[in-house]
C-alpha cells in the first residue's frame, strides 16, 4: 500500500499540473492576451445608489437599506477596455433567491446606449459571472451598474465590491471553486439529475475530475511499465488515483447536503406534520384541500372532477389532488364532460379561473363545453369553487369537447 501511495500521489500531482496547463482549453475566450490584464476593482463606496429609497455607506460597502418599488440600482463610472475583462466577481449580500440581478453598462463609443445582461445569481456573497459572453461587451466601458429587482428581503443589499477580471489560470481556478461550492437548493428535478454547478458555470467538476483521472491513469500505466511495479501495486495505486478526486467531488456533494439540511431544519425543525405543511411551498393548497375535504364525503363511490386551466403535469392541480386524498378524483380537463361521463351527485371543483365554465347563482345553472347542469355551489374560495351536480339538462348545442 505504501508503494501504491508513493506512486499514485506523484502521478496525480503530475496530472493536476497538466490540467493546470490545459485550463485555457476550458474557456473559449482565453486567447488574445486577455490574461495579462490587471483587475479593475470597484469598492462599494465607488458606487452611488441611483435607484433606492434609503442608502448609506458602511466601511468600504454601500448599503441600500430600502428599495424603491422593488428595485435597487448601484452605479459607478470606471474606464476600461471591456474585451480585456471577460469575467467579473461580485460581492453582494442580501440578495433573495427570487430576486433578479442585472449588470448594466455604457461605453465611450456609444454613450447613449445602455446595455444589460441578466446575471444568474447562485449564492449570497461572492459570485463570478462572465459578461464576456455578451456580444455587446466590447468598447471602453465608462459606466457600470448593478440592478436588483423583486421583493425586498429582510437584510439590506450590501455591495462590497465589483471586480472585472481578465482570464488567468488563478482567476479561472478561483471562479471554478466558487461555482462548484455554490449552493443549489432541492429542486423537483433533483430526482432526475444532479448538475453540480450553477447555470453558466465555466466547467463541470466531474468532467474536470474525469479528465484529470484519465490523464493520471495513463501516467500510472507508463510508470508501472518503467518502474516494473507489481500488478497489485498498480491496481491499488489506480484505485487511489480514482478515489482521491472522487473524495473531493463527494465533499462538494456533502457540502450541498449539509446546507440543504440546515435550510430544512430552519423551515421544518421541531414542527409537527400539520405545521410542516403550513410552512411548505404549497401551504395555501394544503389549507384549501383541508376545507374541501369537509365538504366532499370520503366515499370511494363519490366522484370529484378537478377542473383546471392546464395541460400535462401541472404542479398546482396535481398537488391539490394529492392533498385531497382519499377523495376519488378525476384530474383532467378544464370544463364539463358530456352527459354519461358526469352524473348527478358528482362534485365539480373549479380550480382557478376557467373560461369554459360558467355558473349562474340565481338559476343554479352550471354550463361549459355545451353541457348544462343544475348545480349547487357548496363553497367559494379565492382558489376555486366547489359544485355538486344535481340534475342534468339537455345540451345547448352540439359542439367539440375540449
Amino acid at each position: 500500500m505504501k508503494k501504491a501511495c508513493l506512486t499514485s500521489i506523484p502521478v496525480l500531482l503530475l496530472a493536476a499540473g497538466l490540467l493546470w496547463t490545459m485550463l485555457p482549453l476550458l474557456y473559449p475566450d482565453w486567447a488574445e492576451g486577455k490574461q495579462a490584464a490587471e483587475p479593475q476593482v470597484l469598492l462599494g463606496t465607488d458606487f452611488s445608489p441611483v435607484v433606492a429609497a434609503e442608502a448609506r455607506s458602511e466601511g468600504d460597502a454601500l448599503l441600500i437599506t430600502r428599495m424603491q418599488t422593488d428595485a435597487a440600482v448601484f452605479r459607478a463610472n470606471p474606464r476600461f477596455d471591456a474585451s480585456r475583462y471577460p469575467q467579473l466577481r461580485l460581492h453582494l449580500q442580501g440578495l433573495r433567491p427570487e430576486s433578479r440581478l442585472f449588470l448594466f453598462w455604457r461605453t465611450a463609443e456609444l454613450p447613449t446606449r445602455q446595455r444589460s445582461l441578466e446575471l444568474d445569481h447562485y449564492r449570497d456573497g461572492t459570485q463570478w459571472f462572465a459578461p464576456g459572453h455578451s456580444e455587446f461587451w466590447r468598447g471602453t466601458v465608462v459606466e457600470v451598474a448593478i440592478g436588483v429587482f423583486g421583493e425586498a428581503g429582510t437584510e439590506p443589499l450590501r455591495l462590497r465590491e465589483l471586480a472585472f477580471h481578465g482570464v488567468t489560470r488563478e482567476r479561472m481556478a478561483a471562479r471554478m471553486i466558487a461555482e462548484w461550492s455554490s449552493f443549489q437548493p432541492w429542486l423537483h428535478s433533483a430526482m432526475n439529475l444532479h448538475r453540480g454547478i450553477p447555470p453558466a458555470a465555466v466547467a463541470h467538476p466531474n468532467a474536470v475530475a474525469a479528465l484529470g483521472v484519465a490523464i493520471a491513469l495513463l501516467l500510472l500505466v507508463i510508470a508501472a511499465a518503467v518502474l516494473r511495479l507489481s500488478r497489485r501495486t498498480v491496481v491499488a495505486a489506480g484505485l487511489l488515483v480514482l478515489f482521491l478526486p472522487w473524495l473531493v467531488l463527494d465533499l462538494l456533494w456533502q457540502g450541498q447536503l449539509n446546507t440543504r439540511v440546515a435550510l430544512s431544519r430552519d423551515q421544518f425543525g421541531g414542527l409537527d406534520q400539520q405545521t410542516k405543511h403550513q410552512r411548505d411551498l404549497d401551504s395555501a393548497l394544503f389549507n384549501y384541500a383541508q376545507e374541501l375535504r369537509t365538504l366532499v364525503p370520503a366515499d370511494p363511490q363519490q366522484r370529484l372532477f378537478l377542473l383546471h386551466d392546464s395541460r400535462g403535469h401541472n404542479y398546482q392541480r396535481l398537488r391539490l389532488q394529492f392533498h385531497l386524498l382519499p377523495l376519488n378524483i378525476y384530474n383532467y380537463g378544464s370544463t364539463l364532460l358530456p352527459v354519461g361521463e358526469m352524473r348527478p351527485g358528482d362534485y365539480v371543483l373549479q380550480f382557478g379561473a376557467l373560461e369554459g365554465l360558467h355558473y349562474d347563482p340565481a338559476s343554479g345553472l352550471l354550463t361549459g363545453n355545451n353541457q348544462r347542469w343544475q348545480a349547487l355551489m357548496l363553497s367559494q374560495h379565492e382558489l376555486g369553487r366547489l359544485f355538486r351536480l344535481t340534475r342534468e339538462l339537455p345540451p345547448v348545442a352540439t359542439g367539440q369537447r375540449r
Partner: protein
Amino acid sequence: MMPLLEEINLPGLLVATLLPWCAGAVAARVIIGAAPLSLLLGHGYLLGQLLVVILLLGWDAAGLTFAFAPLAALLGGVTVLGSLPWLRRFQRQRRSHPLWPGAMRVHWRHMLWLLPLLLFLTVRGSAMAQEMALRPLFAWDAWMNWVPRAVVWFQHGELTAFGTPDAWLAAPPATELYTLGNWRAGDYPPAIPLLLLWQMLGADSYDHTLLYLPWLLLPGACALALWGHLRALDLPHWATALALYALLSQPLLTTHSTLAGYADLWLGAAFGLGAMALAHWQHTGAWRHGLLAITLALMCALLKTPGLGFGALLLGAAVILLWRPPARWLLASAATVCTLLLLGLLLGLHPRVAELDALLVLDLPWTLPTLTLAPRPLLPYLWQALFVQANWHLLWLLLPTCLLAGLAWRGLASLHSIALLVLVAGFGLLLFLFGFTHYFKEAANFVTLNRTLLYLAPLAVYVAFAQLAPILAPDSSR
C-alpha cells in the same frame, strides 16, 4: 424531536420497519442456506419487503380488512417458524464455533480500513436521516403516482382498484375505481404502494415523514449484500470498504434514498442483488443463490414496469448458468449485439436519420406501451449523464478502468462473468429504449435517463470490484 414522534404509533412503525427485515433474513437463510450475516441481512431486507407485498396481496385476496396487529402477528409467526431450525443449528454450532460467521469476523487491523467508511456513513447517514425526517413528501412522482394508492388503501382498509382515466369515466355507477394524475399510473405494479401501506398501517398514519424509513435503510442493505458478495471473492477488506464507499457516496442514490418515494432505487437494488446472487452461484456452484436471484427477479417485476424487462434479464442469466453454453458463444453474441447497438447509436447522430419519426411501430402486449422505433441521437446525452453531470461521481470511469485492468492481467477469462453479462444486457436494454424508441425524448430532457442508470449502479460497483478481486486477493500471485 418530540412533535415528530408524538403523532404516530412509534412502536408500530419500528415493528413495521424491522419485522420484515428479520423475516427476510430468515427467508434468505431458508433459500440460500448457511451464509455470512452480511448476505442474509442484505438480501433479507429486499426479501422482507417482498414478503410484505405477498402478505398484503394475499390478505386482500382473502377478503380481509387490513389491520396491522394480525398482519404483523402472521408475519412474525412465519418468521419464528422459519427461524426455528436455523436457531437450533446455530445454538449447536455456537458451542464449537465463534459467534459470527466467517465473512463478518473482522480483525482489528482491518477495522483501521473500516474507520473512514464508518466516519463517512455517520456523516452522510446523519444528513440523509435529518433531511428525510424534516421535509414533508417532496419527490414529484412519489406524491403523483406511488403514495396516493397507499393513502387510499390505508383509508379504505382494502386494495381499492385503480385504472386509467378512460376506464374511470366509463365505469358504471357504484364502481369503486380510482385514477391518478399520471395517465398510466393506475396500471403500475403494486409493490411500492404496498410497502408504503405497510408502514402506514404500522404507524397508524398516512402522512408522516418517518413512513419513508425503508428508503433510508435500502442503501445500507445493498451495501451489506455488496460487502458479503465481494468478501466471498476474497477481495481485501480495504478494497471492499472502498466499494461500499463507491456505492453509498453516489449523489443520485443519496437523493433517491433521502427524498423518498420513488421506485427506481428499489429496482436498482433488486436487479443488482439478483445479479450478484447469480455471480455467487457461478463462482461457488451454490445453486440456491440462483433461487434467490429468481425471487429477486419477481421483485423487479412487482416494483416498476421496466422491472419486467430487468427481471427477465435475471431469469435469462439463470437459464444461461443452468444451460452453460460455451463461453465463446456468449462472448460472440454479446459482442455482436454491442457492436450493432453502437453502430445504431452512431447512425442516430446523422442529421437525416435523426429526422426520421418512425421506421417501425412495435405493439407490446398487456399494459406495456407501444414503441416507435428509429435510431436517435442519444450519445451526446449519454455522455453528459455519465461523465459530465455530477450524478455518479466517477463511477462510469471506474467501471471501464477495472474492466481494462481485468483484461490486461487476466485476459478474456475476466469476461467470463455472469454479473458482467447481466450488466451489459441491462445497459443494452437502456440503450435500446432510449437510443431507438420514442423514449429518447425522456433521455434528452434528462427526466428518466439517470433514474434508469440507477438500476445499474449497484451492479456496476460490484462488477468493477469483482474484476479486481483475483488481482488483489491475498493469495493471488504478484
